[in-house]
């Protein structure tokens, strides 16, 4: 059943100002959606209060309204235009909240506007922590023990009941705004106040903290016939308690067995289907107890999310573009995979590389800000790197941070002693991954690091491998550096500059480059093709690595 021909013009709501937790990701999804709908011959009208976005370029839509994201602006646009439908799922929580507000005031009904790609009740259930809790209980999905409080006193009472450590999670926010850890009684009052204030409906979830659990995120797509696919599974290297937006994340999941993954997949699909009827993207977060592999749901976002942009780049599957097509009535099985152009869009991407996202913080610009990471997102951006191994990808990501890091393998030299490092990494901060590497360089054991950070030991093994190669490199100077070792270093993501530094700057970056060129160790370019090379790709993109062939 192809697209719905009764839709001739669509209003897309943008996400407004760039704030922490809601940045250019939604510009990316909004622009993709606008293009995707316009190429179907449907008129696109766009509203966003932020002119510093791609989506508000005049060429992106038929009309662009740079207006405050308010119900008044919406009414004005509806007065001035013939609009059939509104697509509110591309502009993050801001757009959804505005859409909901307009719905409550009867605006959509008044102008006879259809809501597409969204289920208002679904949004309500997903963002209202109590409703979400109730839904999960009713469909048998485990969650952390919790209670919702609408007042300070209620919150205190529930906290006493549940016991510490706790987390406070406000309703209807994003980026973990207003959320936080409560380790003991002394921190409770402040955390409760902050949480209640952050929630537009003055509601918080008081929840038992799950410590040491692993965190995962799944990106889903569903069409109006209820066909569902999982586009990407993202594993947070950092455990629960550090916002996904502030975590180093990896795709595909590195430490998940198929048994655990299918459990998550089944739960995610059940959650999405229980949340109402909408055609489009959805994001589900889970925590997994590494000892028992027990899984609990953390939250569900029935919209294109912050992570969808990452998942799209990571897999080659344009989530927002397809989600927009699903919203106007297409089904997944009648659309084509946008990269192969011959196979179906109804499939689950397979990756033959690793992507690593590392967040970028700007604490030096926020003097006096608390730089401990937690439930509330603090990063202002992120880098994503692709490699043919985790080590290569994580090093590339660190090289791209535009700070003093020259790969993970070389970030100055730590002046801290190993005992201090072990203490230091117990608190999550922006530089934790570098300090973990320092600790490993000093011989701290993998076990000790796992105990201090709750990071899965597989990742620590990988960082240890980087340390091993760095130590090997340090034993040589450029003229006696074996080709095999240099090749191994390059394959594990060491940059030429990094190698020069490891060899105590006895050579320059250029000299390392010349040397490896002489050895024939040069970059090849591989495709991101959604399908692990199973099919020919017509419009792929590329990343570099050190292997045999450009394919």
């Amino acid at each position: 059943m192809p697209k719905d021909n009764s839709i001739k013009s669509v209003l897309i709501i943008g996400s407004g100002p760039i704030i922490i937790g809601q940045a250019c990701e939604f510009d990316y999804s909004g622009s993709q959606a606008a293009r995707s709908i316009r190429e179907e011959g449907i008129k696109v009208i766009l509203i966003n209060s932020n002119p510093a976005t791609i989506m508000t370029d005049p060429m992106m839509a038929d009309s662009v309204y740079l207006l405050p994201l308010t119900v008044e602006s919406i009414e004005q646009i509806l007065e001035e235009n013939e609009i059939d439908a509104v697509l509110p799922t591309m502009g993050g929580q801001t757009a959804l909240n505005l859409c909901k507000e307009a719905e409550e005031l009867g605006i959509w009904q008044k102008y006879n506007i259809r809501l597409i790609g969204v289920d208002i009740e679904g949004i309500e259930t997903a963002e209202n922590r109590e409703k979400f809790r109730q839904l999960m209980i009713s469909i048998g999905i485990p969650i952390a023990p919790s209670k919702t409080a609408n007042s300070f006193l209620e919150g205190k009472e529930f906290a006493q009941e549940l016991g510490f450590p706790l987390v406070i999670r406000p309703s209807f926010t994003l980026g973990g705004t207003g959320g936080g850890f409560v380790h003991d009684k002394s921190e409770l009052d402040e955390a409760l106040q902050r949480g209640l204030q952050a929630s537009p409906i003055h509601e918080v979830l008081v929840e038992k903290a799950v410590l040491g659990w692993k965190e995962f995120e799944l990106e889903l797509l569903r069409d109006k016939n209820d066909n569902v696919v999982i586009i990407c599974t993202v594993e947070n290297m950092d455990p629960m308690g550090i916002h996904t937006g502030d975590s180093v994340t990896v795709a595909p999941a590195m430490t998940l067995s198929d048994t655990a993954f299918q459990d998550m997949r089944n739960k995610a699909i059940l959650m999405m289907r229980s949340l109402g009827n909408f055609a489009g993207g959805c994001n589900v977060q889970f925590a997994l107890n590494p000892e028992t592999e027990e899984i609990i749901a953390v939250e569900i976002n029935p919209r294109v999310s912050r992570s969808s942009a990452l998942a799209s780049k990571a897999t080659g599957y344009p989530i927002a573009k397809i989600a927009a097509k699903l919203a106007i009535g297409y089904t997944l099985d009648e659309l084509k995979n946008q990269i192969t152009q011959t196979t179906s869009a109804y499939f689950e991407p397979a990756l033959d590389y690793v992507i690593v996202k590392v967040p970028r913080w700007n604490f030096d610009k926020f003097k006096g800000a608390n730089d401990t990471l937690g439930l509330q997102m603090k990063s202002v951006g992120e880098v994503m790197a692709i490699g043919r191994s985790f080590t290569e990808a994580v090093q590339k990501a660190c090289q791209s941070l535009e700070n003093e890091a020259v790969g993970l393998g070389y970030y100055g030299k730590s002046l801290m002693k190993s005992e201090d490092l072990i203490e230091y990494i117990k608190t999550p901060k922006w530089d934790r991954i570098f300090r973990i590497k320092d600790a490993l360089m000093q011989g701290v054991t993998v076990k000790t690091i796992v105990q201090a950070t709750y990071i899965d030991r597989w990742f620590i093994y990988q960082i240890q491998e980087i340390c091993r190669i760095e130590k090997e490199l340090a034993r040589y100077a450029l003229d006696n550096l074996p080709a095999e070792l240099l090749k191994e270093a390059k394959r594990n993501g060491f940059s030429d500059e990094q190698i020069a530094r490891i060899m105590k700057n006895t050579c320059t970056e250029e000299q390392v480059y010349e040397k490896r060129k002489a050895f024939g160790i040069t970059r090849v370019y591989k495709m991101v093709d959604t399908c692990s090379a199973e099919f020919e790709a017509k419009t792929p993109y590329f990343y570099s690595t050190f292997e045999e062939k450009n394919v």
Partner: protein
Amino acid sequence: MNQSPQTAVLLLEDGNIFYGKAFGKIGAASGEICFNTGMTGYQEVFTDPSYYGQVLIMNNVHTGNYGVNKKEMESANVKIRGLIGRNLEERFSRYQATESLDDYLKENEIVAIENIDTRALVTYIRTKGAMNCIISSEDLDIHALKEKLNSTPGMAGLELASVVSTTEEYELGDAAAQLKVSVLDYGIKQNILSCLVKRGVHVRVHPARTPFSRLKEFNPDGYFVSNGPGDPAAMPYAVETLKEILKEESPLFGICLGHQLLALANDIPTFKMHHGHRGLNHPVKNIVTGRCEITTQNHGFGIDPAAVRNHTGIEITHVNLNDESIEGIRLKNKPAFSVQYHPESTPGPYDSRYLFDEFIAMMASN
């Protein structure tokens, strides 16, 4: 950690050579090369009897991360002949794991090679098609390897089902159960049996060459024809058995090789595919209900689409959305159906488990 990596080599039938690093058992192994695009469930894949005789490339770049355990096995031991990967992990992380992939492969005497540009290799196989290969971490002499490779039989015309089938009959499930199924084991995956038993079926599993008369002695409510390795066209004995089952008009369900045999029993030919379907993400549409399923697949042979379409007694129930190959059929006048993919998954999505329910319902209403 392997400080002095031992060189290993991969030689393709057409003379192409790839060098890498030894993993698992030190030695040599030859067979048909194939690739799997799945990103989870390597242990289930390695122990799947349908992979018997094949040298498997894992497209996913890290394999072995969560070790292996005693639970996630589809048969008693590793069935692939050899393994090719980008990064095969010696060190693993999982509470439920009992050992590393490296130790497991050594125990099962499986030769593996890592550090291969698997993407280049897969692209090559995708273009040139399936072929034999040899991997070696012992003797790196190409001429000697070529000789060994030449004596490796090709997959076409090869009967392998009886090699991996059980040698003894056995029963599973509650003997007092309402429904009984006679299973033909051509290399059955454990979870197929679990899917039946969990639905309250009492099964008796029979060796590949069991005559129909013996299958019938169990007094079954239905027959199940399993997956398995090799060329279905090399199994006339099985086709005969299926024809006899069909004469009975008893419910029959076939998976993968079982699907191909059901086709052959209805005079629909099978053919060797260019490079097969192996992974956990293959899109299939159930054209009866209109619903789509993400499926687990593992097959190098298929059934002839034109012959199916021209067959008046057969209805197509499932098609592949990527290449329109036939994924499911059912007989119009008999209670028999089959699918080319793996509804039991493991590894893979649970989207198609409903087919077991349909089989149960078919038996219950017969």
